[in-house]
């Protein structure tokens, strides 16, 4: 379909972008890779009056080594993240997951910041961010603030970002151990996960992120607790669906999703602890 009429602006700096957001409020929408927003606009499910295209802001494209944290600029594409040497060495789970998002076209256009800011529970990266215990940095008229990943997703496609804030970067703590497990069940290679699980080793136990098990990306807190208390992975994984509220849709019933969460969590843990 053809989107509803909209205005288009391409600010030349982050500051200018924030200014436009502050000025236009909820009728403005940021455009980065466009792989979530444009389809919604074509279906007229989203009808922003103004598109603020930040896709060419070089200042948001970076991967920076900050010692025990790697900072990934919001406009880094999934493809870049999947190939970036520093990420591959220090946080291999992030590059591995980024390399399995959608298909090559999506990975070349889609951005890590866009994926997280869109707040879709079916997206892979928010679960990685949760498993790592990472955070995001937002910038607005009042300056920067850091938001922990587990306080970022508030509801269905709803995040802690204010209307006039831009997601600047993801902050990924370097895990204690590079081993990880990532399991997702998809209908087709390019599809969103029906359910997915990401396990990242910690000093003790593991961090666990779940994909598509509620209206927001979730941590499998019960599994993390069980592991920390010394439960073996297979036993801990049995608690993967605790506290989840999976939806039923064409691909799976809530019951099947709960089953998948347990199976995929167990497999992710088996890989992380192999």
């Amino acid at each position, binding site marked *: *379909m053809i989107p509803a*009429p909209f205005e288009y602006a391409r600010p030349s700096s982050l500051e200018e972008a924030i200014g436009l957001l502050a000025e236009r409020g909820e009728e403005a929408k940021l455009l980065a890779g466009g792989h979530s927003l444009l389809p919604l606009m074509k*279906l007229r499910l989203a009808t922003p009056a103004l598109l603020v295209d930040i896709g060419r802001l070089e200042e948001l494209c970076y991967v920076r080594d900050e010692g025990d944290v790697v900072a990934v600029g919001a406009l880094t594409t999934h493809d870049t993240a999947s190939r970036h040497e520093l990420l591959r060495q220090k946080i291999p789970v992030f590059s591995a997951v980024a390399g399995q998002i959608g298909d090559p076209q999506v990975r070349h256009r889609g951005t890590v910041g866009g994926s997280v800011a869109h707040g879709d529970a079916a997206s892979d990266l928010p679960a990685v961010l949760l498993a790592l215990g990472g955070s995001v940095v937002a910038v607005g008229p009042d300056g920067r603030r850091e938001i922990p990943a587990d306080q970022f997703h508030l509801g269905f496609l709803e995040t802690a970002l204010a209307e006039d804030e831009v997601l600047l970067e993801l902050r990924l703590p370097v895990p204690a151990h590079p081993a990880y497990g990532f399991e997702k*069940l998809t*209908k*087709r290679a390019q599809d969103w996960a029906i359910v997915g699980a990401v396990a990242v080793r910690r000093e003790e136990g593991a961090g666990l992120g779940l994909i598509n098990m509620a209206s927001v990306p979730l941590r499998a807190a019960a599994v993390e607790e069980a592991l920390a208390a010394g439960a073996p992975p297979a036993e801990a994984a049995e608690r993967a669906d605790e506290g989840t509220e999976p939806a039923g849709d*064409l691909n799976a*019933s809530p019951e099947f999703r709960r089953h998948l969460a347990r199976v995929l969590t167990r497999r992710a843990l088996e890989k992380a602890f192999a």
Partner: protein
Amino acid sequence: MSILGNRVLRREDPKFLTVGGTYVGDIPIEGALHASFVRSSLAHGRIESVDLEEAVAAPGVVAVYTAADLGLAPLAPMGLLNQEMKRPLLAEGVVRYVGEPIALILAESPAAAVDAAEAVIVDYEPLEAVVDPSQALEGGVLLFPEAGTNVVFDLSSEEDPELFSGCEVVVSQRIVNQRLAPCPLEVRSAAAEMVEGRLRFYASTQGAHGVKDELCSALGLPPEQVHVISPDVGGGFGAKGGPYVEELLIGWCARETGRPVRWTESRSESMLGLGHGRAQIQQVTIGGTRSGRIEAYRLSILQDSGGYADVGAVLPFLTRQMTPGVYDIERVEFHSRSVLTNTMPTVAYRGAGRPEATAAIERAVDCFAAAAGLDPAEVRRANFIPKASFPHTTAMGTEYDSGDYEKAFDLALEMAGYDELRAEQERRRQRGDRCQLGIGLSSYVEITAPVSGGEFGAVEVRPDGKVIVRTGTSPHGQGHATAWSMIVAEQMGVPLEQIEVIHGDTDIVPRGGGTGGSRSLQLGGSAVHKAAVDVVERARRLAADELEANPDDIVLDRSLGLFHVAGTPAITKSWAELGAASLEREGEPLAAETDFEHPGSTFPFGTHVAVVEIDTETGQTRLVRHIAVDDAGRIMNPLLAEGQVHGGVAQGAAQALLEEFVYDTEGNPLTTNLADYSFISAAELPSFETAFTETPTSRNPLGSKGIGESGTIGSTPAVHNAVVDALAHLGVRHVDMPATPERVWRAIREAKGAA
């Protein structure tokens, strides 16, 4: 050496791979208006009012039409169908499915047309919708109350209560052959303009002449006033077999406004507007001896026809013809009823009625084998129609022309390494592996060129030696330009580069049946073959005059494309010389036209073997191997034939594993884009292992049968059977298509619960 049978590269491809094709949407038309449609958002309802005020006043809008403005008679269903169920071109009073066009908008730009469509407000009085064909059959909700029934086509009779008497093993199974969306890459598109008082219509279609006929009939125009052109077409799969109401209306608009009009739908619109396929609920019963001899088979079908009586309603007629498949079964019964439901009308989709027959009998044979405790391969081998009995008339009265079912079957099993696969399966079962192996067989026979009617072909030699071939077929990916050139080159001894194939223009090609039902090679190819033979004969007489010899003494040296007197190869006449001589001597080009008709349809066959791995914890199925042995008689070009098989297998496997067009109980479509509708991609498929056996037919001079739909027909049941086979040791007897992870997981769980 003959060029036929060689892997000649597609002549079409350099253009497609470099500058790209020219589709209807690419045709430049000065000053065209753009159309958009207001579509029903309700599955069943009375239209109380249509508020056009805002749309009419919207910027760029030139005209807005509803049913009352058209003055066109509703479209009558095909002759066999219930004539009460006529279709208005725009909904009149009642809407019968979500997506049915209610109003048409013409505007100066596509965006203006779409914006105005959004501004139209339709007020409905909702009526109860009927989505389930079984409920439609009961008739509680009627789509056409005046018809008194939802049944649009009835091929049922009284069941023989004795059909299975004496059978030692009898099994019944309900099988859902689910509704599919054909999804050609090029969506529907049309453009129309008045040129010197005639309607020129650009169509994305499988047959320009069929479009012309229907435009004439719907708009009340004489044939000489309509000119239809189909440029490059990006796929049809049966669903572009005839024009849709939207296309007829584009023609009407060009006449009404006197301005060119064009329309190209979006993918979302296509999912609500291009016809759907399959959609049969089948009940099979099969019986025979404990040793594996099948004695009786009954197939009862409920065909979902959707909101109007379209082609889908009549397809059980083809299913009926192929009921017993490749097996020699003494007692066979077929029943079907086609019913209207508040869903998208169903149409032909790759195989059109025959895949459904194969799916039913091939699942039934596996069910029978499982009940008898026999290997499904053994049961098939024991029941094939023997090679010696062709031509063979089945219990349904269908006469199969030629076949050697066991040969294709043996080759497929050998290529698959069937025994080793079974051994590996057994090992995994013994170990209780999480990942189990399933081996699925499907032996099929199908009917190609199933609808009677000939095909036009013409060959003309120009004075510069160029050969112009005109055909009534309508390629949209099949490669006719390559194949028809090969056939002509073979007869005339001219290089392929010198041959041009023209199709899809009703002013240049006088008649044509188009492309569908795998008819093109056997009819269109044979017509071109015959025309080339006739041209050679005419050229021989011309050469005789030129060389002052007896025509019987003239020979054509096909390696050089030169005529000479036998024994005197030094003095020759070229095609160019003869083309010029014909114009000079006879005042007409060196050419021949022909209409080829065959004495009957042909029946290609084969065996497919699918190997799947199933993760028994998640229910996910992966197709890991697919072996296709197809026999379509003589193969003109293995490259083209393999291309047809590859695409067909992909679509067939997609039905078994992924695709289903879903409505909720109120008739709202739930799979209206390619994220929700699981169109298969290369990543879900293995490299196919293909081979051909060649059992010629005598029903055309080429010895060829159709190959366009075999891949789809053979593959679906093979993959489907493989899924059930992987789970057989767990007690699973059937899983409906598509075998989604959840369905497989539930089947395993239920079998465990029952054990």
